[in-house]
Every structure is written in C-alpha cells, then in structure tokens.
C-alpha cells in the first residue's frame, strides 16, 4: 500500500504510526499460526513498554504467546473490544484487531522494521529453513 506506515518486527508484531502514536497488533502469519484467539491479556493504560519487552499475551487453543513490543513508550490506549471479541484479531489483524496504542518515544525505532512485502519474504524464508 502506497504510503502505508505499517512495519512488522521479526517477532511478528506490527506497528503503524499515525497522529496518535504507534498502534500495535500481530501479523497475519502469527494470527494464522495461533488459530482462533480466545483471550488477550491487554497491557494497562499508562504502563511503560520497552522495545524488545513483552506488552501483551495472546492465547489460542494451541498456544499462549507473549507479544514483544517493537517500540518503546507509554501505553495510551488499548483495544477494549478484544476483551469480548478476542478473535477480531483473526478477522482483521491489521485493522480492528489492533491491540495497543503506544506513545512512541523514538519513531526511529520503527525504521529498522520490515515493510509488509519484506515481512512476507522473511516468513517464507523462515518456513523454508
């Protein structure tokens, strides 16, 4: 997508910068690998997250995984809808299934991440290994 600020980490977490900050969620590959998400442990609003540190947990029938934040900053908002409908992540992982909004301290952190096209190649490569 032209001009899309979506970037994805090797930990399968995406971030999209907009006027409010950096919105985080999990990738299509991660959502598919997990299967139907049954619970998301959301961070507290106001909590500090660190790049490379955990910010939430997603749980499916297959696994429970800690999600690693690709950016540092304070949690400004969380997607409250996930409390009732955690599988919004399966339905629309890059949109309605966002998890948290972080007031990103250093937007340069995003630069080292992959574009969607690069990420798709990364995932394909990882599968071949």
């Amino acid at each position, binding site marked *: 997508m032209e001009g899309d600020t979506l970037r994805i980490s090797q930990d399968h977490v995406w971030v999209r910068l907009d006027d409010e900050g950096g919105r985080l969620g999990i990738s299509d590959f991660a959502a598919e690998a997990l299967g139907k998400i049954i619970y998301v442990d959301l961070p507290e609003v106001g909590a500090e997250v660190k790049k490379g540190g955990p910010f939430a947990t997603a749980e499916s029938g297959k696994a*429970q995984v800690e999600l690693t934040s690709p950016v540092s900053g304070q949690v400004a908002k969380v997607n409250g809808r996930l409390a009732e409908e955690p599988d919004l992540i399966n339905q629309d992982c890059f949109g309605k299934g966002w998890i948290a909004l972080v007031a990103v301290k250093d937007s340069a952190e995003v630069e080292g991440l992959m574009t969607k096209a690069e990420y798709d190649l990364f995932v394909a490569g990882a599968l071949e290994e």
Partner: protein
Amino acid sequence: MFLYDIVILGAGPGGYVAAIRAAQLGAKVCIIEKEYVGGTCLNWGCIPTKAMYRSATLFEQMRKAETFGLSCKEPAAHLDRIVARNQQIVTDLRQGVERLFWRHKVNLIFGTGVVKEPGEVHVVTREGGKERVRGRHLIIATGSEPMALAILPWDHERVFNTRSILELRRIPKNLFIVGGGVSGCEFALVFGALGSEIHMSKRSKEPIKGLDRDLTRELVRALKKRRFRLHFGDPPVTAAHTDHGVELTLQSGTKVETEMVLVTVGRVPASAGLGFETIGLHLEQGSIQVDEHCQTNVLGVYAIGDVTGRHLLAHYASHQGLVAVEYALGNRSAAVVEHAVPEAIFTSPEIATVGLTSQECERRGVACREGVFPFRALGKAQAIGEIDGFVKVIAERESERIIGMHIIGPDASTLLAECTLAVNRGVTLDELGRTIHAHPTLAEAVWEAGEDVRGRSIHKLDLGL
C-alpha cells in the same frame, strides 16, 4: 496420678495425627482440645473452603455448559445451602476423628490446657472442671490464629476474617480482599465464581509469596482474566464505614467502596497465655523454635505445626507430628523432610508446587535446567476443556536430579503427589522419562515437562512465533 507416655496440646492436623501414630506405637496418649478436633484445617480452613471451592467451580462449569453441548437453565447459587453443606461435611469429619481416637484408645479431653511444667498440663475442661494431666513427653500443637489489621477490625458483619466469612449466608455484591496470599486468592476465586465483584490488594506486587515466577505470572493473568480488580503493591491505609459498606483508601489515594471486606493478611502462632514462657520455651515472635526432630529447647517438650511458624500447612504439621512421636518414642533417625514440602493452592486453575523455584536456584547458586509443558498441548486437557496452565520441571544441571516441580493447571493438586515423590527421592530426568504415564491423562504433562528439560518433549508445539 496417672502418667501418660505422650500428652498433646491441640487436636488439629498436627496433634491428632501424632496422637493416633503414638497410640499405634503402643503409647498411652492424652490429647487436649479447647474447641473442636481437626483444628483450623478441618473446621475453618482446608476442608470447608474446599467444599465451597467445589460449589463455586461447579457453578462456574454450569455456566459454561453450552460449551460442552449441554443446556443448563438459569443456574443460581445459594450461599446458605452451600454453607449448610460445608457444615455437614465438617461435622461428619469431626466425628470421624473422634471415632479414630476412641478406636485407638486416645484419651480426648475438651478444655483449655496451660503448661505448668515440662510434663504437666493443667486443664480447665469445657464443663468447667479442673484436671492435671501428666506425661513423659509433651507435644505442643496449638496452631495459629488470623492476624488482625489495626485499620480494619473485624466486626463479622462487614469486615470478616477467614473464619467468620465461612458463616456468611449472602453473596456480597462486591468484596474487597485485603492481603492476597493463598487464602486471599482462594476466597477471591470462590466469591468471584459465585458472582461477587472482587477487589484484591497486597502490600507486595506478587499475589503469593515464594511462588515460582512463571507461576506468579500465570496466576496474575488468571486473576485478571476473571476481571478481578488487582491493587497489588497498593494496600489500604484507611477505612471508613459507609451506608453501603466499607470505603478503603489505598496507598495510591484510590478509594474503593465495597459491601464487605475480607482481611487475610497472615496468621500468628497461638502461643500466648499457655504457659510456654513459664517453662522457658524459646519463642521467636511467638513461634516455638524446634530442631529437625521437633524438639524444643526444653527436654521432653516438642512442638509441631503452625505454632512452630515454619510452613503453615496441615500436611507439614501432620508430618512433624509423626516425626515428633517417633523420635520421642525412641526412633532417633526420625527427622523432618524439608526439601520436598508440597503445597496445593485452590485457585482456578489450581497451583501445586514442591521443591526449589527458579528464583531459589539463582539465590542459592544451584546450576539447573528447566522444562515447561503447557496443558493446552495435551489431548486430555482439550477433551475436558481445561487448557490453561503448564507444568515446570527444574533439574540439577550435572546430576539431572529433579529438584523442583511447579504446576498451574487442571487438577494440579492431584498431579502433585508424583512430583513430591520425585523431588523427595531425587528422581533423575531419565528415571521420570522411563516411567510410563497413562494416556489420556493430565499426568502426561508432568512427563512431557521432564522431557522438555532435555529438549525432547513430544507434544510441545513450536509455532515459530
């Protein structure tokens, strides 16, 4: 005056087990109990809370019935009936213990005993009579009592302790539990399942002290999943009674008003006014100090259970009771097992733990390796619809002996027995690995976690995430 071989003060799970074992070994035994046989465990602890836990978890399952293809129309909880059931169970079990005393010719005296000399106890009986009881050996098993909190004195109408809350007949709309800990977490689960909105506070950031850090993380997640409001690290500093209940002001300034408050901030040894100082017993903050044979500093006087201030666990008290009796009656090798004390915690999912935690290994500089297996990867867990949690195995790096096992998950308390045997006997990963675990059972998770220490769990799924 008649001289008993063994006189026991207190008929809780420490004292009554000691009495029966002593009688089995041929001793003449007298046991003195001020209230009811079975002590805190049977009357106001383990047993009635587990009866309530059963009602609460069953109620929760009824509400999940649709998931299993079943319909259950409008399930409802009636606390008065739940409490009546508890009381029936407690009464029956109490009679069972009294019958065991009768069967083993243990002389049971109901009354308050005060130690006058190392081998002499003066008893004011329940009927008001006075008796002098003398014995060669005295075992003190007086237990512990709920610790009071100055800002929240119990009135047993709005502010309860772990004993008085068992007599509540109405489910509170909301309940503030001051002090997490084992009891706090268990009552939170029970009242949360029955429909109360739960607030919990704790002085520390961790709900249960000493728990392995991975279990703590999972427990906090489980509490949050139930939408309990957690105020860990933010204890109440003031309390005020209002028209609707009690309003607590927390350290952070947050104010919370709830209909009822449960204070469960710990327990204190029941050692005051019982003559312990008179005979020169060494007490520290009220706890009687004992060695590995449960001997006190006074010859012929032993102490067991909560009053020794070690592990406040019924089964540890019973174990100490067995050791004290055997040692007193001549088995000089009888000593308390300290490296494998199991503990079961009835949260949902349950928690069960034995041996060293990861933090303890680090603190003691024990080189170790860990394995973890999530229940959700097990067919049985999926079949019964209980997939939360995991088993964690800690083994010594060199010897591969299992030194710690920690479970959070379905039936963890039952799975604990195998783990305790393994830690107690220093079973190796290879020995566990060569032990067939029946399929389909939850115990397979214990086997898998053992295998995972060596990176060879069969069913652990790596999603590549």
